[in-house]
């Protein structure tokens, strides 16, 4: 699957904005994989109760996905967006 990352987390990926990763079954699993590759990234985006932090949004194949446990389609494109967060 293809992962698109905003600038906010690219300090963890060495500046990389796009990643190709093996398919993950859920967003939760995807962020577990991302954290294994880029330690620390997960907790900046996902809180300790497993929820996405308020100003991040995930889009799966162009549709917003709010359920961290929803099944991800094979070969999906997951775009993480840093939404509005104040001044």
């Amino acid at each position, binding site marked *: 699957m293809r992962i698109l990352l905003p600038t*906010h*987390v690219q300090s963890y990926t060495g500046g990389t904005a796009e990643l190709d990763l093996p398919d993950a079954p859920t967003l939760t699993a995807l962020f577990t994989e991302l954290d294994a590759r880029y*330690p*620390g990234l997960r*907790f*900046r*985006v*996902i*809180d*300790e*109760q*497993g*929820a996405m*932090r308020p*100003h*991040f949004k995930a889009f799966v194949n162009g549709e917003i996905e709010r359920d961290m446990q929803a099944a991800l389609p094979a070969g999906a494109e997951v775009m993480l967006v*840093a*939404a509005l*967060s*104040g001044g």
Partner: protein
Amino acid sequence: MPRSVDLWIATRKGLWKLAGDAGRQRWSLSGPHFLGHIVHHAVADPRRPGVVLAAARTGHLGPTVFRSADGGQTWQEAEAPPAFPSEPNGRVLDHVFWLTPGHSSEPDVWYAGSVPQGLFRSDDDGRTWQGVEGFNQHPRYRDWAGDPAEGPPGGAKLHSVLVDPRDAAHLYISMSSGGTFESRDRGASWQPLNHGVRADFLPEPPPGSYHEYGHDPHCVQLHPLAPDRLYQQNHCGIFRLDRPGDTWTDIGANLPTPDSVRHDIGFPVTLHPRDPDTLWVFPMDATDVWPRVSPQGRPSVYRSRDGGTSWQRLDSGLPAEQAWFTVKRQAMSADSHDPVGVYFGTTSGEVWGSTDEGERWTCLARYLPEIYGVEVS
């Protein structure tokens, strides 16, 4: 030969270092570190020169702690930053608000206070953090900490983590809101310590009783050479506690009230490193709707040299009118020189310093973002 002084300036938009020479006459600003991060506190380790911890988050990114071992040249993020347990209806840590180095006999220990209120400890110099469950999971936590939704702006916070220099197991913490609490067993058990502190925002307690908790200490400090002496700048005044007593004494009532405006409300309280009777506060306007700016637009530090019995207004060099900043609770500190240097950072992004214990003030830096913390290295 006096050593140079570094100030770590934590702001709403990043971290800066303001380096002064040994004479404290020439100052040089470097940074920013973590530009765009909200840095609530950055603290140098008195036990290990060069080690600095910084508590940071951004509007988007969750909370973390960064550590430098080389005076801020390079930084490493904590492998396991403070977080609450993952559990049903579990708490979510919004940010780390306060950092305290542990006891001198435990050079790898740090404590952190958070929003919402939580106490965390690191045993490996800030690399990994664990909750102090004796407090975070205390059966009375919900009573003591109150409803986080009803906390102050910026969130209900745990701050002023104090370690008794005679006993690593003897700790104090304070919560806004909640009050001050004490542990004598390294955080396993806790007792409220709020007798004598006013809580004007609560109903009057029944005659003969007092509010055991629910208070709003803004900043509590323990004197390093006289650890039985504590001072507290509170939402409702200034108080002193001399242990083993357990009743705080109101010393803010002794502050002058120019033009009938009370000056005993503010955020920080800073102690003289050698004289337990000398302290500094920075009053803010607490009239009618609580503007939380310098009273009457005329900022001033107040100093007591007798444990709060009397106070002197110290405003020489500060703006004489139309200056509407205030100073947050981590944003005033003192160095160890003789005479002592006192420094504060303002909500308008200025750093002010005095090399003569407050007699005369000079602006050391300006145009910074809103300042949350000023700590001496």
